[in-house]
């Protein structure tokens, strides 16, 4: 188990390192960040001054090294727009995004797993068809549009929920549904396929043959095994969702890290954008690492991979 964890950890660190380099160098795509920062009306001297102040006149690798070592100490520089340390800005905004992400994945799991299980127990039944419809529709649903429809129906027409903001738990209901629905189809399909697979296996037949009750067979024997891949998928989806929350946060004007990303991109706030790309990537890397370790712990066969 320990060699597996160490190997996997090494890989995660290497991925993190590569991602940090890419997210840093992405912002040099424009050619001259100083010119971009100074704006279109700036004179040559202004641009030159900005270049020196922000250190853009140094070689890119030196700038990257500098940035990386500061980032390792938790210092991502100062936001061009907010004039605040990027790290504290992101830390403050992450609360909203994390709340949304956790609620979203819980919503997805609590709807997708039961639906997937029932759909697998009764294939081609009405519930199976409803589950299939929900997952097919979910994969085609533009999340910004789904969010706007919910606002029109529940906030404007019915007046049940607040349309935007993050003041109370009621503000999180619609964003949770939109973000959770995005992750639901994949989880449901995997649960259903896993359950169907397991239910056809020999040890389930044995469990039934020795007279175990149906509930016991389904939950103790079948679901326990079918749920293993779902755990790692949920972790991956959680990472995707945090990255995808940018759309949902902008629809519902939730001032989380995704909204911050949108604001900073629109305002050319390079240090904030770089830091946010890195932070969202780190979440994904940490989640997938934890999922792999958890998987290896649950299923020893995975440890050789």
């Amino acid at each position, binding site marked *: 188990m320990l060699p597996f964890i160490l190997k996997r950890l090494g*890989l995660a660190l*290497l*991925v*993190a390192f*590569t*991602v940090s380099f*890419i*997210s840093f160098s*992405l*912002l040099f*795509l*424009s050619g001259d960040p100083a010119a*971009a920062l100074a704006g279109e009306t700036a004179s040559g001297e202004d641009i030159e001054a900005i270049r020196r102040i922000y250190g853009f006149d140094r070689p890119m690798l030196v700038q990257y090294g500098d940035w990386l070592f500061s980032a390792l100490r938790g210092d991502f520089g100062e936001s061009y727009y907010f004039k605040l340390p990027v790290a504290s800005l992101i830390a403050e905004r992450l609360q909203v995004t994390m709340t949304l992400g956790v609620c979203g994945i819980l919503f997805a799991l609590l709807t997708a797993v039961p639906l997937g299980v029932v759909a697998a127990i009764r294939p081609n039944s009405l519930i199976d068809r409803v589950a299939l419809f929900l997952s*097919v*529709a979910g*994969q*085609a*649903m*533009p*999340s*910004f*549009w789904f969010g*706007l*429809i919910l*606002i*029109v129906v529940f906030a*404007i027409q019915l007046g049940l929920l607040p349309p935007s903001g993050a003041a109370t738990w009621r503000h999180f209901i619609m964003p949770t549904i939109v973000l959770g629905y995005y992750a639901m189809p994949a989880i449901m399909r995997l649960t*259903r*396929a896993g359950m*169907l*697979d397991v239910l056809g296996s020999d040890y389930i037949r044995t469990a039934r043959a020795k007279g175990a009750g149906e509930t016991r067979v389904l939950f103790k024997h079948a679901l326990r095994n079918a749920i293993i891949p779902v755990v790692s998928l949920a972790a*991956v989806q959680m*990472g*995707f969702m*945090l*990255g*995808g929350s*940018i*759309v949902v946060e*902008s629809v519902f004007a939730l001032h989380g890290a995704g909204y911050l*990303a*949108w604001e900073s*991109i*629109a305002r*050319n706030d390079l240090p904030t*954008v770089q830091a*946010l*790309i890195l932070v*969202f*990537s780190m979440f*994904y*890397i940490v989640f*997938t690492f934890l999922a792999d370790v958890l998987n290896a712990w649950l299923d020893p066969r995975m440890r050789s991979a």
Partner: protein
Amino acid sequence: MTDATDPLSREIEGPSPRQMLKARALKHKALIFGMTVVLLLVLIALLAPVLAPHDPYEQSLMNRMVKPVFMGGTWEHPLGTDHLGRDYLSRLIYGARVSLLIGAVAALISGVIGTAMGVAAGYFGGKVDAVVTFLINVRLAMPVVLVALAVVAILGGSLTVVICVLGLLLWDRFAVVMRASTLQVRRRDYVAAAQVIGASTPRIVLTEIMPNIFNNLIVVVTLEMAHAILLEAALSFLGLGVQPPTPSWGLMVSEGKNMMLFEPWLVLIPGAVLFVLVLAINLMGDGLRDVTAPEGRS
């Protein structure tokens, strides 16, 4: 010898694999539905200049936000007009061009990148495989929407930039699926046979591997095309994708959002069309998978 009761000749007279595939495809309702809708929308996009009742860019400040015909409007503007008085139906029709073009070209670019990586990883294994798997991991760790938004913002939102950015970001699923498919095919006897007679690697890949993983490739192409279309709409909705006045469905939703309180149809119509297109492409992709790999159905 050619007696009809002879078991050997009967086998030969049976339906060919192609005919069996066709029969399976025609029985698959979701596939037929998806294909019909996609073909219809492709036709609409191609014939846009003929079908659109108005110029999609022509503004008419006297005719702003005319209601659609089913909400008390007139047939002059069947789906009404937007906040600048532009005919909504015409913009929708031209918007199909934007979505389909972005979806198709982005899927093509990412398909070439991902297939090359996946097939190389699956065929050569070892270090090549390790490097490709690592690159896939790196790519998956980068948040797509965020990176795409940032790059489009830096380079400026034009159709070309959006297509290239999405094409360079969406190759991961191609690489994963093509790698797995190649790994499976690689162990088959006919690949070994080709190696034994001394066929070159490019020849083996092109004539032995590719034809046998082509079905899987087509499925991923459709699914990634849908993915690219949804992402373009999201980028345009956030104001950092295709720029106005280009008629993009995501942009239309975004422009209608401000009037959503009074004129919700401005948001509902383009979003619904987007939903139907993506749904149809996905149904087509899922259907193709069912039909071409009937043994893998669950």
